[in-house]
């Protein structure tokens, strides 16, 4: 186990300055989740276009550095992307957390890949995996659950 792997510069940056925090304009889907054991909370908002493009994406939440960074990176990476890409990246991400496999989607910039991959250090901290994955599961619920 290596703390430096877990708390990389990129993660600390996202945790301290989360991107896309708050309710995004015109959100038409949302979902929230919380982990009753540790008190972490996340609420994902998205503005999903008729064309299945995510026009806007944001989150509210409180929690540890890992959960904040994960939500922040998620919103940053998926804003503007379409649903099929979102699904693929989510699968890849969850896989990475589980098996330390690499993210290789070629529509992502190297920078984006580095950013997302910074979360893979959590793999060696089993009790923290939920912190990293909660936002991603919640995004899926939000997509599936139309906000009326």
């Amino acid at each position: 186990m290596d703390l430096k792997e877990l708390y990389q510069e990129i993660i600390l940056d996202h945790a301290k300055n989360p991107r896309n925090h708050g309710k995004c304009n015109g959100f038409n889907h949302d979902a929230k989740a919380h982990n009753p054991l540790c008190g972490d909370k996340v609420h994902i908002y998205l503005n999903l276009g008729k064309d299945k493009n995510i026009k806007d994406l944001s989150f509210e939440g409180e929690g540890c550095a890992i959960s904040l960074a994960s939500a922040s990176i998620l919103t940053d990476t998926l804003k503007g992307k379409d649903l099929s890409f979102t699904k693929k990246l989510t699968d890849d991400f969850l896989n990475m957390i589980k098996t330390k496999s690499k993210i290789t989607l070629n529509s992502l910039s190297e920078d984006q890949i580095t950013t997302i991959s910074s979360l893979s250090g959590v793999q060696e901290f089993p009790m923290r995996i939920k912190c990293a994955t909660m936002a991603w599961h919640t995004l899926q619920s939000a997509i599936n659950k139309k906000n009326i």
Partner: protein
Amino acid sequence: MNIKNIKSAFPIFKQKINGKPLIYLDSANSSQKPQTVIDKISHFYSTEFSNVGRSVHTLAVKATNRFESTRDKVKNYLNAKHREEIIFTKGATESINLVASSFGEKFINQGDEILTTELEHHSNYVPWHFVRQKKGAIIKFAPVNEKGDVEIDEIKKLITNKTKIIAITHISNVTGAIMPLRKIIDLAKEKKIPVLIDGTQGAPHLKLDMQDLDCDFYAISCHKMYGPNGLGILYAKKKWLDQLQPYQGGGGMISEVLKEDVTFASSPTKFEAGTMQTAEVVAFSEAIKFLESLGMENIQNHENEVLSYGIEKLKRNNSVNIIGDPKERGSVICFTMKGIHPHDIATILDDDGVAIRAGHHCCQILHDKLGMPATARASIGVYNSKEDIDVLCSAIDNCKKVFKI
């Protein structure tokens, strides 16, 4: 045995955690077990195991004697008046559920009030919530003040002629506040209101005397007092034993079973349905022996020394915010650090071999009031030392390094 080197009585401390000595500061969650307790379990299973109370063969006799003599030991340890006041349960949670269910069923009705505090562990709230749901009762919460104490006056104010029971913790597992039990029980007796004490955090640290304390119910988790997992105790004052219906039905707790009706044995059997945790009960006698051989006063003095040292040292650390400043504190220090979430603290501390807990510690109402979803908690057991606190403090400094604060 000398408290100063008592770690050697606990085999867990031979472990290295991430290459470092284990500094176990999570005893409020569950305590580690001395070798004598562990050995008793093995020895009992290997040489004397049998179900108790039901067979007449030699092993059953041995097991039953050991089981029942542990009850006597617990009775003496708690200075209860009668052995039938000692009921074995699965843990403090089950002890409180038993009382809430059996007492609630009979004595709490629509509009009646259950008086508790904002400090309570979920185990001393959710069972009463069930009673509220079933009976249409009301739960009143005596407020905690900014020091982390619940003042006797706040309790007094909330008592009405509808108050049917007062359910309150002995020591808060978050602020560490030791409740003014003597005053609360005196007040309750004046008003003829029974009192249940959640003694989960009290029993491992304080000398107990049921006849002197004179509460109606006292709930204990054996696994927090150096005993085995999966075992708890409910002390219930004799006057209640016949009044309360049994909690679970099954073998052993009956008197006569007919198709039309069932009558029940007397306490404690009545409240101990089904096969009990024989080995755990038998091994718990070794935990009591352990506590008695050290002496509760010595344990308390030692723990208080370590606790005060910890409080002092953490107070001097500007990045650390200690939760609560109660009049009397028992064995628990909750804290937060600016810019570092308690979970991250716990993970970073673990890298230095320091085991603490982070979260709401099953006290969500209190954490909501504190405006903090989570805190970090270092809790002290008999095996902790000032050196442990030193390691804790340097591990805390390491958190700042990792977070570059």
